[in-house]
């Protein structure tokens, strides 16, 4: 007991000179982002090394929290918005222009938004075990037409961004026929989970043959588990993009730090942390500089992407078509 006290005191004394870092950058982030298995800790370490400040992550549902707190939000920066919720985020009116030159971005689409800055992205895809599944659909149309023995887990568009992106993707591919296509797909959909992780868990347990995930999922298995049996089915109609965004808050008390952080987001240092910590493509790093496991995984040829107004306008109809089609 006594020893511990002394050791504690010694530690506190030794640590005190280093507490020159009295500036704090408060970052709102989703729970997964800041957890020890997400990209948060490495990004914090890298930024703190150059900013002479401390990053304080506050985790939770990003948009609900910002809407609840409004102008009282403590955040200087919010990171981890999904591109499907961009319009609602913008409508809060809480954000200031990021001030970053978007010319450095390497997305497959043009991006010149002044407020929301992409920090990573991926394509939505159906992922499968390439040793177990023989007939892999080469298009969304083929997936719909596949045998009803195929077992697929997807996510609910009413509770997850990936589920919502899927509904928009199907809407974009099938147009007016989308509800009928959902009905045709229905027998193959084993279950609908509220979020990505429950569905992916069913896939790794072998409960389903295919799961709605990302083209970057196989990279996790290849790199972290040295397992090459997981692949993403590439559809010829193209794949819906998921883009994750950061923005800085207009009411920030540390505007310069926040601006510095936004610049840091597109820096090679930040960007090179993304692939193997968030298992997605970096948004501002040429493909040649991606880790090896990311070079070899299958890449769609065509990107599908709806600008925020269009996505917002189609959202309710796409969800209703999904619900009706699967309820028949």
């Amino acid at each position: 007991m006594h020893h511990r006290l002394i050791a504690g005191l010694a530690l506190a004394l030794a640590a005190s000179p280093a507490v020159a870092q009295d500036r704090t950058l408060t970052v709102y982030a989703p729970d997964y982002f800041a957890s020890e298995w997400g990209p948060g800790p490495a990004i914090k370490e890298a930024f703190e090394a150059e900013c002479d400040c401390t990053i304080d992550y506050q985790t939770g549902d990003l948009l609900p929290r910002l809407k609840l707190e409004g102008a009282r939000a403590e955040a200087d920066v919010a990171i981890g918005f999904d591109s499907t919720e961009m319009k609602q985020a913008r409508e809060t009116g809480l954000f200031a222009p990021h001030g970053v030159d978007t010319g450095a971005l390497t997305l497959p689409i043009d991006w010149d938004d002044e407020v929301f800055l992409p920090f990573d992205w991926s394509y939505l895809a159906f992922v499968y075990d390439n040793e177990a599944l023989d007939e892999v659909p080469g298009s969304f149309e083929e997936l719909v037409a596949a045998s009803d023995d195929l077992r697929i887990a997807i996510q609910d568009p009413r509770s997850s961004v990936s589920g919502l992106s899927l509904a928009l993707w199907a809407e974009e591919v099938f147009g007016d026929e989308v509800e009928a296509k959902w009905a045709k797909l229905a027998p193959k959909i084993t279950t609908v989970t509220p979020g990505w992780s429950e569905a992916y868990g069913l896939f790794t347990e072998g409960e389903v043959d295919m799961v709605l995930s990302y083209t970057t999922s196989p990279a996790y298995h290849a790199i972290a588990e040295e397992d090459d049996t997981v692949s993403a089915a590439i559809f010829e109609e193209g794949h819906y993009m998921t883009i994750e965004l950061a923005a800085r808050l207009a009411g920030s008390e540390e505007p310069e730090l926040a601006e510095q952080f936004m610049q840091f987001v597109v820096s090679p240092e930040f960007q090179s942390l993304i692939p193997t910590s968030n298992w997605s493509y970096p948004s501002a790093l040429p493909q040649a500089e991606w880790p090896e496991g990311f070079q070899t995984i299958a890449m769609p040829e065509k990107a599908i992407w709806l600008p925020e107004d269009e996505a917002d306008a189609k959202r309710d109809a796409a969800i209703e078509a999904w619900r009706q089609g699967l309820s028949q």
Partner: protein
Amino acid sequence: MRWPGGIAAGLVIALTLGTLGAVAWRAGFALRLGPADWAAIRFTVWQAALSAALSVTLAVPVARALARRRFFGRAALVTLLGAPFILPVIVAVIGLIGVFGRGGLLNEALALFGLGPVSVYGWHGVVLAHVFFNLPLAVRLILQGWLAIPAERFRLAASLGAPVGRLLEWPMLRAVAPGAFAVIFLICLTSFAVALTLGGGPRATTVELAIYQAVRFDFDLGRAAMLAVVQFGLCGAAAMALRAAGAPETLGAGLDRVVERHEPGGRLIDTLAVALAALFLMAPLAMIVGRGLPGLLELPAGLWAAAARSIAVALGATALTLVMALALALRGGALARLSMLLPLAASGLVMGTGLFVVLHPVIAPRDVALVVTMLVNAVMALPFAARVLAPAVAQAEAGHGRLADSLGLHGLSRLRWLILPRIRRPLGFAAGLTAALSMGDLGVIALFAGDGQATLPLLMVRLMSAYRMEQAAGVALVLLAISLALFWAFDRGGRVDAAA
């Protein structure tokens, strides 16, 4: 002493109706229910009714067997049969899929006979899970009814050669079963986590799931408030039916007595009933252990800190729940009954959001994340704890209340000398129940948590969202073990030196 009960009731009402009021005040009501909402309401009521009916029906032969047979390991079996009720849903789903999933035990067994495969996903998956959780409760309630039949009557009936079933058991079931049905119906009305993964699709949407979507995704608080009111309405109607059916206000604590019966036969049926129930309830637990073992080799670094946090929250919630339940039991009356019911109808998410709205202007929500989680867990477990304690307190008062009056025992000394010594067993049982329920609840921590505040369920969620499914299964096993250990320790503690 009536005022502590008043305070407890006030706290319950503030946390249930008050938080709903705060959410509604912030957002206003969206006074419109779409076709999808009506579909959700229909499914909610329908699945709850079916789940409750099946649980009660299946519980009858099991309860009868436990009532009239004495066999080796009976006491251990009665305790273990209670496990599913306190099992964290997030963990239970792993076990249910291990047994009933595509590669599960059931389909492997069916394949031996060239049958199957059967799918667990869909409305029947939701009902299956609800029966899994609530069959033990139904068995407990009905067993209570059996044990309440005086042994003399069985003896008399046997000596007269009268039909025991028609004369004694059927009237008892008619009195007890509707109440058991109503309690389980109420529990299944607001259960939501089960429907998430096993539901199979949008047809299996429940009201609570719709609230989850409104709060966490659409952030349509007006809609969430509206749906929460619908849920209170549904539960209110069910509760009134429950009272009309003369439902028991108890969950039954001491069940170790075996009815002395002089009746030949039925041994095969009894053996079968107990064996099948044990298999149905234990196999998923075994699967959780099996799936979790590999993960134990690579438990994450933050595990024990998270476990300590979860245990601290559970113990805090337990203390608070016991004090509130005791206070309500001592007060009695309509207000106490309402307080024992309200949390069953409340949505944890609406409660959490309401607390956020109220607290945010005063204090940073994450500074009180664990306290808030403890508070919400305590209130959510109150209906169960209170139903265990209230009858025991009433019994103690009925038996010795006058004597205590004549001795001038009031206030704390009355509690100390009259009540507490006589309710040790139910107190231990209630404490175990509350601690285990709180342990497994992901609850509102996900809305509030900051750095270094993860509880065990939240740790599981984090691992799962980072592809680490095997580690998550290991954490699930640790969670299961701690939940059961807490339950066992409290339940056991109540039994030491206590009269049976």
